[in-house]
């Protein structure tokens, strides 16, 4: 039993370096990330080019339906269509880019094509660097718009609300700042852990099933597709609710009960 478990080694935790472009090392996850970026850009570009008032192209129709559905959800989350429209481009690109990154790990040939004993492709979200980069991007946006919308004073008072003479205010404020840092960790580690854990699980089940790996991994692949969708949606939704929570002017935030519940996670 332990022999079987020790026989396989899942892909290493860190992405491997393929070659360097000047001083910048190019890793295998970056390579597939660039490929999926080009794919998403191509999809949006073709759809935007074919988009008409009376849609004739099938692709434009599907992309428009997707964007309309997601926009409906965002308008509901923000509670304000104008504000939702302002933040929508970032959110929809995060959703589609993460979705393509998650699903690309399930394609054949992703970890099996080798280049100098290093797998040439590795899906974008199974790399902690890339999920951390996306989390930094989304949280930087959150704080930028928080300062812009409620002002620097309101931004600071968001953490230290109440009388400054009261030591409890300082304690709660420091806890709030700590939870703000913790958001960065959870947002990046959740996406990375789920996708990487899923791929390692697929690998382990294929190794345990031996010759019947193709049938044993089939249900797990469906689970993976489901989880990829959920995680891409979750990343977008959490970013949206962080924006809502930090740009709301105190008092009215109590009307967004589901966002308050998600902020705790």
């Amino acid at each position, binding site marked *: *039993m332990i022999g079987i478990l*020790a026989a396989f080694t899942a892909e290493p935790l860190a992405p491997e370096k393929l070659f360097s472009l000047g001083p910048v090392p190019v890793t295998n996850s970056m390579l597939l990330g660039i490929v999926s970026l080009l794919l998403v850009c191509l999809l949006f570009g073709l759809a935007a080019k074919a988009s008409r008032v009376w849609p004739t192209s099938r692709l434009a129709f599907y992309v428009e339906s997707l964007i309309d559905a997601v926009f409906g959800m965002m308008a509901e989350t923000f509670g304000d269509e104008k504000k939702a429209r302002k933040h929508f481009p970032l959110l929809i690109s995060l959703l589609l880019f993460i979705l393509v990154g998650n699903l690309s790990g399930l394609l054949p040939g992703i970890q099996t094509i080798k280049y100098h004993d290093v797998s040439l492709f590795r899906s974008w979200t199974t790399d902690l660097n890339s999920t951390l980069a996306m989390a930094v991007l989304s949280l930087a946006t959150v704080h930028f718009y928080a300062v812009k919308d409620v002002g620097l004073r309101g931004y600071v008072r968001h953490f230290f609300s109440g009388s400054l003479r009261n030591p409890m205010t300082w304690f709660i404020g420091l806890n709030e700042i700590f939870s703000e840092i913790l958001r960065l960790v959870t947002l990046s580690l959740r996406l990375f*852990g789920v996708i990487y*854990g899923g791929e*390692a*699980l697929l*690998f*382990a089940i294929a190794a345990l099933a031996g010759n019947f790996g193709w049938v044993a991994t089939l249900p797990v692949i469906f689970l993976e597709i489901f989880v990829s969708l*959920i995680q891409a949606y*979750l990343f977008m939704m959490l970013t949206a609710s962080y924006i809502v929570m930090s740009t709301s002017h105190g008092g009215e935030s109590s009307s967004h009960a589901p966002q308050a519940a998600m902020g705790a996670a």
Partner: protein
Amino acid sequence: MATQLDPSLIKGLTIGLGAIGPAIGVGIIGSSVVSSVGRNPEIQGKIMTMALIMVGLVDAYFAFVLLILFTTHS
């Protein structure tokens, strides 16, 4: 006293103990979804999307367990 533990025992215990919390969490979510859909079935779609978000948040912890399990080689 210091006997060598079997690594596969540790791995099995990691999965088993790590699955308790997320399993209880997903169970609580499922029971609340069923009862709230029973109370007002007309907003089933909204409840389902919210429930799926919560399931995604909860089972991330089990994914952390799998992550730890598959990245430690003994």
